């Protein structure tokens, strides 16, 4: 079986399994919506003032809800032994990790991007900035999925690994947060977000090319 076919099968399996548990699929999304509601409620600001902190709120909420869904990246398969079967399957573990992470992004990151207009309107982000917001969220959530795959691989099978996962992934994700929120912020102020978006793009490329190797090495360490 070729590597491509293996990847497609893994992605298809991930999607199929996730759609069997739609509640688990929706939980991070609902968390995202709830967290973005918390900020305006807590700060009690008018919509026109809220848009200044909207990118930060949006991005922080996206980061936190992505972390929720990251725990399940490898955990389910590790618990029932599928992961070991995948490692033993003879296919490159890196390819399998790429497939699983891509599926994870489709299920969580893409969902966040699709839900973002709702949140953006609630936070007062002008429609003109939506394009930048989408672009930055796509790049950012992809980067986060890749970074998270490393953290998830390192903490799979640990008791209370989810806290450790956040502790590991969040510091690595901070540059992405800075530039992602920065890009949206510039778009809202009417300035060109190109610089920040390019940087975000390069971060994404850097991460997605190197992270699969790190994550598969981590899986080999934690699974042996």
């Amino acid at each position, binding site marked *: 079986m070729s590597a491509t076919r293996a990847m497609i099968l893994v992605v298809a399996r991930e999607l199929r399994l996730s759609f069997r548990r739609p509640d688990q699929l929706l939980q991070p999304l609902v968390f995202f919506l709830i967290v973005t509601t918390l900020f305006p409620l807590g700060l009690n600001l008018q919509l026109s003032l809220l848009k200044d902190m909207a990118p930060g709120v949006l991005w922080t909420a996206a980061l936190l809800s992505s972390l929720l869904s990251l725990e399940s990246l490898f955990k389910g398969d590790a618990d029932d032994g599928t992961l070991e079967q995948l490692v033993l399957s003879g296919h490159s573990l890196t390819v399998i990790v790429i497939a699983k992470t891509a599926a994870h992004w489709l299920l969580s990151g893409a969902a966040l991007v699709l839900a973002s207009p709702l949140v953006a309107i609630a936070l007062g982000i002008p429609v003109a900035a939506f394009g930048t917001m989408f672009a930055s969220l796509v790049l950012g959530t992809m980067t986060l999925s890749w970074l998270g795959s490393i953290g998830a691989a*390192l*903490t799979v099978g640990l008791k209370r690994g989810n806290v450790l996962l956040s*502790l590991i992934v969040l510091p*690595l994700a901070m540059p992405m947060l*800075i530039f992602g929120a920065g890009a949206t912020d510039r778009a809202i102020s009417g300035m060109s977000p190109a610089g920040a978006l390019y940087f975000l793009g390069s971060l994404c490329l850097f991460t997605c090319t190197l992270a699969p190797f*790190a994550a598969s090495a981590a899986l080999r360490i*934690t699974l042996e």
Partner: protein
Amino acid sequence: MWTWFYRLASPPFVYRTAGTLTPWFMAAAAVAIGYGTIAGLLFAPPDYQQGDAFRIIYVHAPSAWLSLFAYTTLAVAGAIGLIWRIKMGHAVSAATAPIGASFTLAALLTGSLWGRPMWGTYWAWDPRLTSELILLFLYVGVMSLRAAFDDPGRGDRAAALLGIVGVVNVPIIHYSVVWWNSLHQGATVAKIGKPAMPGSMLWPLLAMFLGFMCFYGAVLCMRLRGEVLNRERQSAWVREAIQS
């Protein structure tokens, strides 16, 4: 030819050598830090812009440098342990982590106190400060990850991988003042050729750098002996080594 390299990897050799080196490192550290502190506080002239507040550099800059050096050591030693399966690499990596974390905290706090009179604020989210704060979180993450595993070997290897992943932050911290418009000043000492400081200010600073490095060497050797004992408890050589 490679026998000296294999000796480096041998736990009894590491234990003995660390024990021998510690007093020398400590003596050098005491002299250098002693001279650097006294000269820096009393004999260096006040800066024309910053007045006496610039004297914080004598503790801030060496701490910051050590925080980076220790993390790089952590990452390289962990890589040696991971790639060549040399257990002493993991021992060095584990020993250096808490030391580096403490100096990162020192750099952040002294920098904050220096920032208050100089920039008017205890904190700013500028690239260098932010990436140094991220470094502190990385240290904590590596230490927590190592401790989370029941099997210490697995914990070592996982922590080594995380250390390597995080090392990308080190050049970011170092070059942040070059790549971005930062509140934090640029390089004053590391400029090739003429540094931007007069000798009376520079010598105590260089002494402090040297002293802190020797201190790091001493404390690392001390902790390393503990790490070696913990990992090699069951070995035969340990009996004679600790009963002497």
